[in-house]
C-alpha cells in the first residue's frame, strides 16, 4: 500500500453566523499519527468532517496524493480511502459484530444467510484486528473499548488508507486507551495515516508523531510530538499556562448522610448500598461494563429500579415503579448527554430550563428564558454564548459544558456526575472539577463516576469499586494506590480470573 498524502488547503466553513473553520491548512501523511488538539469549539471535528465529505467547504480544497478531489458525501471520501470514527458510534447495537461488519463491507455477498455466517473473510479480518471477540456477540453487549476497536475494524474493512478518530479515548479507561494506542501505532507502522482528535496529553505522549493545534477555526501550530512538552501543548491550545490542579477540600468528620442508596438493583447493577455524606466526594471506579454507567443511570432517573431505594436528605429520590422527576437539589450529569440530556434542535435557553419545564408559566416567555440562560452560559463559558442557538449545533465539549451548567444551577445538595469532564479541554476540565470541589467544600455530596484513576484518587475522599454489577471495595482515597484499586477493578481480589481459568 502506497502511503497516502492528504492535503487540506485553506478550508473554510461557516454555519450561518458562526465561522467554524477559517482558512485551515493541514497535511496528513501515511505512516504517521497526527494528534489534532485544540480548545472546545476550535473546529477540530468540523475540519475532519470536511475531510470526510460530511460537510462541504465554503472555500479551499482537498488534495489526495497531489490530485485535487471533491467530496460531495462521505461515500466519495470512503472511495478515496478516508475513514472516520465518530464519538457517537455508528454500530447497530442489536446486530452481531459480524453483521455490523458485513453492512460496511463493499464485497459482502448479497445473501448473508442467518447470522451472516458466509463471509469467512470478515471473521479473519476481525480476528486480526480485534482478537478475542466473538463475531456472533451482540454489539450492544460489548464494552466501549471493544466497540471502538470494531469501529476501527469497520473503517479498515472499507480499505481506508487514512483513519480519522474523533476523541476516541474520551470514554475509555486507561487500560482500554492503552490498547487503542497500540492499535494506532500498529496502523502507522503499516503505512496508514491516522488523525487522532484528543484533549488528553497522555494520548499525545503515547502515540503521536506530530501534533497540530487549532484555535478559533485555524490551524495555529504544528510540531513533532517529541518537541511538544505537555505544558507547551496546553499553552498553545488555550493560550494560558495550565493551572495546577486544586487540592481536594478537607472533609469535616461526622457530617450527615445526604445521598443514601439501599439494596439497589437495576439491570446489571446488583444490590448496591452506598452512603455519601455532606461534603464528601465519593469516586466510583470500575472497568467498563462493570455496571457503573447503569448505576449512574439508575441514580439520575434514566433507568428504572428493579429493587431498592435511593434517598436524598431523607426524602425518597428513586424507587421501583416511581416515575423519574427532576429534583432541583440533585445535579445529574449523565454519561452521554447528547443522547439523554439534550433536546438538540431546541435553543440553549430551553435546554437550560429543561429541569423547570413542567413548572414554567402556562404562557412561556422565551425572552425570560433567554435572560435566565445568560448566567449559566457565562459561568461555564459555553461557546458561542448565544441562548437562541440550537443546542445540537454546539461542539462536543460545549454541549457537555451546557449540561453541567444546567445541572449545577442553584445550589444542589448532591451531584451524581458520570464522566463529567468527558470531551472537555484542559481549561474546562479544571473549571468543572473546581466547581465540584467547591460544592463539596460547601457541604454538597458528590458521587463521581470517572475513568481516570489518578484523577479520582487525587480528588475524591473515598473510592468505591464496581465489578460485575456489585460494589466490591470501599477504600480511603487518601491512602489507596492505583495498583490496589486496579486489583479490585479486575475482580482478581474476589474471584479467580475466569479467563485464566478457562485457559
Amino acid at each position: 500500500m502506497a502511503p497516502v498524502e492528504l492535503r487540506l488547503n485553506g478550508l473554510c466553513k461557516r454555519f450561518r453566523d458562526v465561522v467554524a473553520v477559517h482558512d485551515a491548512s493541514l497535511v496528513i501523511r501515511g505512516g504517521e499519527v497526527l494528534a489534532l488538539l485544540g480548545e472546545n469549539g476550535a473546529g477540530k471535528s468540523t475540519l475532519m468532517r470536511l475531510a470526510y465529505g460530511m460537510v462541504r467547504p465554503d472555500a479551499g480544497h482537498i488534495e489526495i496524493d497531489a490530485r485535487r478531489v471533491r467530496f460531495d458525501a462521505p461515500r466519495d471520501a470512503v472511495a478515496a480511502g478516508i475513514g472516520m470514527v465518530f464519538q457517537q458510534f455508528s454500530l447497530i447495537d442489536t446486530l452481531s459484530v459480524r453483521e455490523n461488519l458485513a453492512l460496511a463491507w463493499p464485497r459482502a455477498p448479497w445473501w448473508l444467510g442467518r447470522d451472516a455466517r458466509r463471509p469467512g473473510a470478515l471473521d479473519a479480518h476481525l480476528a486480526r484486528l480485534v482478537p478475542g471477540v466473538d463475531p456472533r456477540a451482540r454489539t450492544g453487549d460489548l464494552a466501549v473499548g471493544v466497540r471502538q476497536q470494531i469501529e476501527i475494524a469497520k473503517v479498515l474493512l472499507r480499505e481506508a488508507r487514512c483513519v480519522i478518530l474523533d476523541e476516541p479515548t474520551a470514554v475509555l479507561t486507561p487500560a482500554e486507551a492503552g490498547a487503542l494506542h497500540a492499535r494506532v501505532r500498529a496502523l502507522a507502522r503499516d503505512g496508514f495515516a491516522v488523525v487522532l482528535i484528543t484533549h488528553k496529553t497522555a494520548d499525545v505522549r503515547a502515540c503521536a508523531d506530530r501534533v497540530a493545534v487549532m484555535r478559533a477555526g485555524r490551524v495555529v501550530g504544528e510540531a513533532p510530538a517529541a518537541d511538544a512538552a505537555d505544558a507547551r501543548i496546553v499553552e498553545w491550545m488555550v493560550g494560558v499556562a495550565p493551572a495546577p490542579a486544586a487540592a481536594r477540600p478537607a472533609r469535616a468528620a461526622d457530617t450527615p448522610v445526604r445521598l443514601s442508596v439501599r439494596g439497589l438493583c437495576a439491570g446489571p447493577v446488583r444490590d448496591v448500598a452506598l452512603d455519601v455524606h455532606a461534603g464528601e466526594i465519593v469516586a466510583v471506579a470500575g472497568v467498563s461494563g462493570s455496571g457503573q454507567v447503569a448505576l449512574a443511570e439508575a441514580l439520575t432517573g434514566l433507568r428504572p429500579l428493579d429493587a431498592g431505594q435511593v434517598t436524598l436528605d431523607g426524602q425518597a429520590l428513586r424507587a421501583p415503579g416511581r416515575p423519574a422527576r427532576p429534583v432541583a437539589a440533585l445535579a445529574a450529569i449523565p454519561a452521554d448527554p447528547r443522547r439523554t440530556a439534550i433536546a438538540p434542535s431546541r435553543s440553549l435557553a430551553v435546554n437550560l430550563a429543561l429541569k423547570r419545564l413542567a413548572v414554567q408559566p402556562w404562557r412561556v416567555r422565551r425572552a425570560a428564558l433567554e435572560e435566565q440562560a445568560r448566567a449559566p452560559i457565562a459561568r461555564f463559558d459555553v461557546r458561542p454564548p448565544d441562548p437562541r442557538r440550537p443546542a445540537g449545533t454546539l461542539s462536543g465539549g460545549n454541549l457537555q459544558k451546557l449540561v453541567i451548567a444546567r445541572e449545577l444551577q442553584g445550589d444542589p445538595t448532591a451531584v451524581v456526575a458520570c464522566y463529567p469532564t468527558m470531551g472537555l479541554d484542559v481549561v474546562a476540565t479544571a473549571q468543572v472539577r473546581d466547581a465540584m470541589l467547591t460544592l463539596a467544600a460547601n457541604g454538597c455530596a458528590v458521587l463521581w463516576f470517572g475513568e481516570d484513576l489518578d484523577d479520582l484518587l487525587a480528588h475524591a475522599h473515598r473510592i468505591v469499586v464496581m465489578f460485575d454489577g456489585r460494589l466490591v471495595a470501599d477504600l480511603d482515597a487518601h491512602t489507596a494506590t492505583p495498583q490496589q484499586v486496579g486489583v479490585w477493578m479486575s475482580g482478581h481480589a474476589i474471584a479467580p480470573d475466569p479467563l485464566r481459568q478457562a485457559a
Partner: protein
Amino acid sequence: MTTVAALAATPLRAAFVRAAAAIGVFAALASLFFVSIGQPPATMFVEIARAAAGSGYAVGESLVRATPIMLCALATLVPARLGLVSVGADGQLYAGAIVGTGALLAWPLAPGPVLLSAVLVGGAIGGALWALGPALLRAFVPVHETISTLMLNWVAAMLVTWLVHGAWRNPASQGWPASIEFPDTARLPVLGDSRVHAGLALALVLAVVLHAVLTRTRSGLVLDVLRDNPRLQAVTGCAVAPRIVATMLVGGAFAGLAGIVETSVVQGRLQSDLANGAGLAGFLVAWLAGNRVPQTVALALLVGAVLAAGDGLQIATAVPSSATLVVQGLMFVALLAVGGASARWRGVGHGRG
C-alpha cells in the same frame, strides 16, 4: 445544492421553496401527460387555473375542497408535533361522520343550536374515539401508530358503508344507500349562494388557536422538547405516554370535524366514500409544510384548489374523468417527490461528531 440549502434557510422560506418546487415538478409532469394524451399543455394549464380560481364559483369550489384537507392536515400535524406519524385522518373522518350523524338520528327534533352543537361535538368525539385505540396501543404496548391508524381507516370506511346500507339507510331514498338528509338546523351556515360554509371559518379559527398553543404555551414547548428527545422525560418530569394520548385525541377530533362538516353541509347526508381522499391529501400537506400550522393552512388551500380544478377540468374540457384523476395523482407525486428531496437536503451536514 448549496443554493437550495441557503434558500431554505428559514422554516417559512423553506416551505415556500418547497411549495414552488412542488408546483414546478407538477407542471413538468402534467405537461408530459397532456402531451401524451394529445392536449396542448398551455391551454390545459390555463383551464386548470380558470377552474381553480377563474370565477367566484371556482374559488368557492376550491375552498370547499380545501376545508376537509385543511382539517385532516391539522389532524396529522398535532400528533406529529410529538413525533408521531398518524395516517389515520381518513378513518377518524369517517368515525366523526358516523357519531355526528348518530347525534342527528338520536335527537332529530332537538332545537337548532342544540342539534347543531351535538352534531359537531359528536363529530369531534367520534374522530377522537377512533384515534384512542391507536393512541393507547402506542403509549402503553407499544404498537406503532402508523400501522394501527392505517388499518383502522378501512374499518371506519366499511362501518359507514354497512350503516348506510343497513340500519341508517333512508327508506325514502330509492336504492341509493345514504342516511336521511341533514335538516337545515343541523347544518353550518353557507356563504351566500355558494357552497362555502362556516366549516372553513371554523377550521381557520381552530388553526389560529392551535398555532398559538403550539408555539406560545408550555404544552407546545413540552411537545417540541419530547419530540426532539423522548428520553428527556426523566430530565423534565414530563411523561410521554399521556401526551401521546392527548395529541392523538386532539388530532382525531380535527379529522372527525372534517367528517361531520363534509357530511352535514357539503353532502347533506351520510354516504360511502365521503372522505374523497382528504385524509391522504391532508397527510401530505402537513408533511410538506414541515408540520407548521401557517404553512399547512396555505398549502391546504393550494391543494384544494388543484383538486377542485381537476373536477372543473372535466366539465370545461373534453378530457375524460380518468385523465383528471391522473392529473390529481401527479400532483401528489410532485408533493411526495419534493418533500422527500427536501428531507434529504436537510439531512446533509447535520450529523454531529
